[in-house]
C-alpha cells in the first residue's frame, strides 16, 4: 500500500539541502487524503493527540476571531484613557480585555484619521494578529494581495472598494517580523448614542486590516 501523504508536488529536481524533505511524485494528490493519512500516522505514533487537534480547531473556529478585535476598537472609541494606553502599549491594553497569545505577543496599534490611512500586509508569508482577528482570510493570504499592497496600495484599496483621496497619506505596514499591527479605524459619525457593544458590532475585520472603513 502506498500512503497518499508523500507529496502533492510535481516531479521537479531541486537543489537544496533543506529541500531533502520533499519526496516528489508525478501527480498531485488530494490534500484531504494526505492530511488524514498524516494525522493517523502521527496519532498512531503517539506524537499527537487527536482530541488536542479538535481543541485547536474549536478554539480558532469559535473562540478567536474578529469579534475580539472589535471589542478593543469599541473600548478605544469610548474610553479616552484606554485609547491612550492602547497606543502607548497595545499588547498590555489588549490583554486588559483578555486577549493575548500566539501571533499577538507583540502588538502595535495604528490610528486611521481623516489625514492618514493605515493598511497591513505581510509580503513574505501572511503574518496576521490572530488573537484579535482570528485566522486570515484567503484574500489576505493571496499572492496578489501580498505582492500589490506595498507597491500599489491605492490600487488595491480601490479594487476592494475603498477610494482614498490623494491628499490622505497611506501607511502600509509590512509585518514581516514578530510585531503585529492592529488598525484602529475612524469612529463613524452619528454614533454618539451607541453603547460600547453596539459600536463593537459595527467594527468589521476588514476595517482592522485597513481595507475598509467602519460604516455607521
Amino acid at each position, binding site marked *: *500500500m502506498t*500512503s497518499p*501523504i508523500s507529496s*502533492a*508536488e*510535481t516531479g*521537479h529536481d531541486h537543489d*537544496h539541502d*533543506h529541500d*531533502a*524533505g*520533499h*519526496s516528489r511524485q508525478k501527480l498531485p494528490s488530494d*490534500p484531504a487524503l*494526505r*492530511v488524514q*493519512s*498524516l*494525522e493517523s*500516522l*502521527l496519532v498512531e505514533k503517539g*506524537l499527537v*493527540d487527536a*482530541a*488536542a*487537534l*479538535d*481543541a*485547536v480547531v474549536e*478554539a*480558532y473556529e469559535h*473562540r478567536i476571531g474578529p469579534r475580539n478585535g472589535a471589542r478593543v476598537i469599541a473600548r478605544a472609541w469610548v474610553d479616552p484613557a484606554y485609547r491612550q494606553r492602547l497606543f502607548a502599549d497595545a499588547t498590555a491594553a489588549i490583554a486588559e480585555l483578555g486577549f493575548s*497569545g*500566539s501571533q*499577538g505577543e*507583540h502588538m*502595535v496599534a495604528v490610528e486611521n484619521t481623516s489625514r492618514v490611512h493605515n493598511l497591513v500586509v505581510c509580503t*513574505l*508569508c501572511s503574518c496576521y494578529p490572530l488573537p484579535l482577528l482570528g*485566522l486570515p*482570510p484567503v*484574500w489576505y493570504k*493571496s*499572492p496578489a494581495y*501580498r*505582492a*500589490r499592497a*506595498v*507597491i500599489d*496600495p491605492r490600487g488595491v484599496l480601490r*479594487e*476592494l472598494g475603498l477610494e482614498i483621496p490623494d491628499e490622505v497619506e497611506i*501607511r502600509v*505596514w*509590512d*509585518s*514581516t*517580523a*514578530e*510585531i503585529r499591527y492592529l488598525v484602529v479605524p475612524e469612529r463613524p459619525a452619528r454614533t454618539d448614542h451607541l453603547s460600547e457593544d453596539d459600536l463593537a458590532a459595527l467594527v468589521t475585520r476588514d476595517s482592522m486590516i485597513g481595507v475598509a472603513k467602519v460604516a455607521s
Partner: protein
Amino acid sequence: MNGIHDLGGMQDLGHIPYARTEPVFHERWEGRIFALNRCAGAWRKWNLDASRFQRELIPPAEYLRMSYYERWVEGLVALLLKTGLLAREELASGRPSPGTSKVEPLLTPDKVWPFIARGTPANRDVQAQPRFQVGQPVRTVNIHPEGHTRLPRYARDKAGIIVRDHGVFVYPDTNALFQGEQPRHLYCVRFGAQELWGPQANAQDSVYLDLWETYLEAP
C-alpha cells in the same frame, strides 16, 4: 533566499480573490493541518522561523499553484522527515515503523488553550546597546543570503528613517537555520513610497518595516 515567497512589488498576480465573509476553514483538512502544525510546534523540535523557511523552500511553480494550507502540509512533512520524527518508509506505508521516535511533551487537550493564549514571545531580555536612535536616517544593506531572511528584496539598498526601537528580538536569519536565536535590536523603519517605487508612487505615502539591526547601516 531570493525566492517566490518574497512577493512584494510583483505586478503579474492578477486580481485579489476578495470575499467579505468566508468560513474559518474552507475544508475540514485545512483545520486539521493547521492544528497538526500547532501541536507539532509544542514539541519544540523546530521554531517558527524554521517552519517559515521550510515553506519557502517549496519550488516556485508549486508554491504558486498550492493553496496556503497545502504549503503547510508540505512544510510539516518536510520538517518531520528532517528531524527524524517520521521516516520515509512510514510516509510510504502510512504505518509506524517499529522503534521510531516519540517526543515529549505531547500536547494534551487541556493544555491547548493555555498554549495558544500564552503564545511564544520573540523578544529577549538581553541588554544590548542599540546602534540606532529614533529619528536617525539609515540605509538597508544589499544582501542576498541563500538562507532565510526577513529583509524583503524590494527594501534592500534603500534609505529610511528609524521610527521605533522595539527592543531585542530573536534573529530569524540564524534561528531558521538552527544556528541559535542570536537576539538583537529590532527597529521599525519608515520608507518613503517614492524611495521604494520611484516617482510613480504617491509622494506622501510610505511603507513601514520592522528590521533587525543587522539589516541596517548608517547612510
